[in-house]
């Protein structure tokens, strides 16, 4: 086995005995207190830094500190990195790090055949088997025969390597995660420098902590190398990417930044009215850090006050947003109707989680689509968009803001736990690269009235209080078109219902045509929407490589649909609609484009699709007569 100095990777081109992989999936799993999220994030930064494509998926229990040693308490962080084809955090790990028997139990069903499993052997005792609900020791009962199991004495080695530093037991245990991280770095021939720099930055005031973490990290790295436990190590060459500046970003952070950018490009203040709820809270918390941009953050007393304050801010001229998840969304529906009637710009972000009711607050799902499209009293059309990857949350937050302002309408932006907490590399967009957003303003006082519309788009103007000479009143009662006065006239009501619907429909004139994969395919069209994009791409690409005539279209514009949707659908013999719900987008498509026949494929397990199960389904459909 070759010596690979941690920092020496750039120079040394000699370690080619390490197998070169296109990519790999690692899962770190342990108790909530075991620091798996940190280990995962540090690995992510490193591999991003050396230029790999990445996609991550953290997965933690809903309790703050779930009982140690139990399966319910297992916290996991999965990362998929590679030089190409990284569209999702991956189905099946190549490497599992299990800090205790519960973590092993929770994950062993998901591994790739012949995967590598690193366990902390010190935790494998009867007490922990009981906590994990294991009858027998999985390391000895044969259930892991097909895997490569590395039994590392993580706990004791950590303690040993810190023996002379005068740390408490608790402090020492907090370094365990660095031991396994060191091992994994060795396994994938990754440099440790970025991580060591992180320690130095983060714990500047506490050199002992820097030292301790460094020691344990190196100990792990050296352990991997010395014990020759691994049959081989791997290397994943950097991805080919468009030149530019990159950073790692989560979906929620990207969403927050997209709004910051949009407000600036619209020349408006930014207002966020929100109430905390998992998994949307991070958007609020991220934006709260940036008061320096002038953003007005209002943590409201509930979701209703959150959206209502945003409607008020919109009336007063700010780009106004509100962020929430399913149960909070349910509470906002009445107010969304008010924004529809008053035709004010507003962006509502719903980071979806498992439902119904409180459901599975920390799990992912795509089951708020019908609520977004239809969940209001009366005829209450809004624009609905969905983000599809952690990084493109930036673009969709920006696009939602643009449409809201330029079309004077509420826009619902659907994100989902899976991409909101997941991360990937974002090619940084500077403000100069982003388009301007143009608020619709009146041309002159003479011709103006509050509900006078621009002829092609049916958009009214956005005149805000404080503007002399344009004083007017709006409200939730039906309006007379043009004047905006209250009107109970039957014909006007019919006209206004149609007009509001048309206005939203006309947004389709202002969005790009839908792109799709598989221009030459015609057998099976895979349809998806939102955040399952990456996994669907992976599945479809594999099938295409396997010679199948399969195409993929993944929607971000949910309502209205892009204008060429019908045309794309028309090219294929069969259409399968894949969603993490019991069949919602398929219903929406049947309502919008009833001329096609759709087959639903649904998963409702609080978890993303897997490439394998998708392919199995697609093959079944293709082969079915």
């Amino acid at each position, binding site marked *: 086995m070759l010596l690979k100095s941690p920092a020496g990777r750039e120079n040394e081109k000699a370690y080619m005995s390490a197998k070169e992989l296109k990519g790999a999936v690692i899962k770190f799993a342990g108790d909530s207190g075991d620091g798996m999220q940190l280990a995962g994030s540090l690995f992510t930064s490193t591999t*991003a*830094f050396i*230029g790999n494509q990445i996609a991550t998926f953290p997965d933690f229990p809903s309790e703050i500190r779930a009982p140690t040693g139990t399966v319910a308490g297992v916290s996991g962080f999965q990362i998929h990195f590679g030089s190409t084809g990284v569209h999702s955090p991956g189905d099946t790990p190549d490497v599992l790090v299990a800090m205790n028997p519960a973590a092993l139990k929770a994950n062993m069903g998901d591994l790739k055949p012949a995967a590598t499993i690193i366990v902390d052997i010190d935790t494998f005792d009867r007490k922990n088997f009981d906590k994990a609900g294991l009858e027998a020791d999985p390391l000895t009962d044969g259930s892991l025969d097909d895997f490569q199991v590395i039994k590392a004495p993580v706990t004791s080695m950590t303690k040993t390597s810190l023996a002379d530093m005068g740390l408490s037991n608790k402090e020492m245990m907090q370094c365990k995660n660095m031991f396994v991280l060191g091992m994994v770095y060795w396994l994938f021939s990754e440099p440790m420098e*970025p991580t060591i720099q992180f320690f130095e930055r983060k714990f500047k005031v506490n050199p002992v902590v820097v030292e301790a973490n460094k020691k344990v990290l190196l100990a792990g790295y050296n352990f991997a190398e010395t014990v020759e436990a691994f049959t081989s190590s791997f290397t994943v060459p950097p991805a*080919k*990417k*468009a*030149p*530019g500046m*990159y*950073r*790692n970003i989560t979906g929620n952070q990207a969403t927050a*930044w997209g709004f*910051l950018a949009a407000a600036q490009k619209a020349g408006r*203040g930014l207002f966020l*009215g929100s109430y905390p709820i998992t998994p949307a809270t991070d958007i609020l918390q991220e934006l709260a850090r*940036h*008061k*320096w*941009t*002038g*953003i*007005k953050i209002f943590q*409201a*007393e509930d979701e*209703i*006050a959150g959206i*209502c*304050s*945003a*409607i*008020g*801010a*919109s*009336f*007063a001229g700010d780009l*106004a947003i509100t962020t929430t998840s399913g149960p909070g969304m349910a509470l906002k529906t*009445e*107010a969304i109707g*008010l924004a529809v009637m008053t035709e004010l710009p507003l962006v509502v972000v719903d980071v979806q989680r498992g439902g119904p009711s409180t459901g599975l607050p920390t799990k992912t799902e795509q089951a708020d689509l019908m609520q977004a499209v239809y969940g209001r009293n009366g005829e209450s059309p809004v624009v609905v968009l969905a983000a599809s990857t952690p990084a493109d949350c930036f673009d969709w937050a920006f696009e939602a803001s643009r449409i809201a302002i330029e079309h004077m309408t509420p826009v619902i932006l659907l994100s989902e736990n899976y991409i909101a907490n997941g991360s990937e590399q974002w090619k*940084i967009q*500077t*403000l100069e690269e982003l388009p301007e957003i143009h608020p619709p303003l*009146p*041309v*002159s*006082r003479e011709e103006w009235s509050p509900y006078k519309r621009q002829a092609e788009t049916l958009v009214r103007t956005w005149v805000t*209080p*404080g*503007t*002399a*000479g*344009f*004083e*007017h*009143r*709006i*409200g*939730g009662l039906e309006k007379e078109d043009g004047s905006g006065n*209250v009107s109970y006239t039957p014909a006007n009501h019919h006209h206004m219902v149609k007009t509001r619907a048309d206005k939203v429909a006309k947004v389709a004139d202002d969005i790009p045509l839908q792109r799709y994969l598989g221009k030459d395919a015609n057998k099976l069209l895979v349809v998806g929407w939102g955040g399952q994009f990456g996994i669907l791409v992976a599945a479809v690409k594999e099938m295409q490589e396997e010679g199948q005539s399969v195409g993929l279209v993944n929607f971000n514009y949910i309502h209205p649909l892009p204008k060429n949707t019908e045309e794309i659908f028309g090219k294929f013999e069969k259409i399968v609609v894949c969603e993490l719900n019991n069949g919602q987008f398929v219903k929406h498509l049947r309502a919008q484009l009833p001329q096609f026949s759709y087959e639903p494929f649904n998963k409702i397990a609080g978890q993303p699709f897997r490439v394998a199960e998708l392919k199995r389904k697609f093959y079944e459909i293709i082969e079915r007569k």
Partner: protein
Amino acid sequence: MEEITTNCVLTAKDFASDQPVRWCPGCGDYAILKSMQKALVELQMPKERPVFISGIGCSSRFPYYMSSYGFHTIHGRAAAIATGVRLANPDLSVWIISGDGDSLAIGGNHLIHAIRRNLNMNLILFNNEIYGLTKGQYSPTTQRGKVTKSSPHGTIENPFLLGELALGAGSSFYARVPDTNQKLMTGVFVEAEKHKGFSLVEILQNCVIFNDNAHEEITGKENKDDNQVVLEHGKPMIFGKERNKGLVLDCLQLKVVTIGENGVTEDDLLVHDAETENPALHQMLVRMQLPHFPIATGIIRKVQTPAYDEALREQISLEKERSKFTSLNHLFLSGNVFEIKSS
């Protein structure tokens, strides 16, 4: 967009919109509308600055009748919506218009939180002790035992005492005014607008159709002097047709005394201090009930506590100074960033 400046002197009529007023003849709401128009003139408000934000109810139609900016929103949410208006634009004069149902039934939570946060805006609460618009069901301020459309056998609920609830939520400005006293009302509106913080004005408003004479004992020509003490900061608490009655403190209880009887003189009376931080006496004043006490009207409490909107603005300015970021590009390009060069 071209801007029109209004530099001529405005009159109350200039604040009337072109929409026909649709309250029932005799409704107490008319007087409130008029007083508001007068107050705006007194405040020398230009037409584009005041914004009237209402919920749903008879009272909440108010914005349609004013010629300034207005927003007739949804039931109970006016205070939340106004919060957004206030935070987005500090230059506006923000008036929330609401009813006892709108603000104390469905909107109760937004009310207490608005009071607590003390945003710089005004809430005019038309308390007719009934749901007018939906035709006469009891509200959270309806007197116990009252027969209404939804309580054919009399209500069994203890009503809120608005003043007490407001003080409990930390109110910095609370006033109570009968709809029959336009002069007092206009003055209170002016003071409410001048107050830096959340000014709550309760109007004892008469609904001629569904709860006629609910406030008659307080507002009736015959009763009003004896049954009402109009409080003025710095003035003794005197009332009565002959202005010979007054209030004194007896341990932890107020007491009504008569000047001239038992040696009581005006100097013995309590002097109203609306501006003291200690709410103890204010709480006693709002709690006074007929028949043993007069009802307290006027500005009962008016104290300076930090206003949320100002604090937010300060925090933003401070962060602008001390943040390490100077632009969004700067933020996006900070931290763990790496470059891919064209290869």
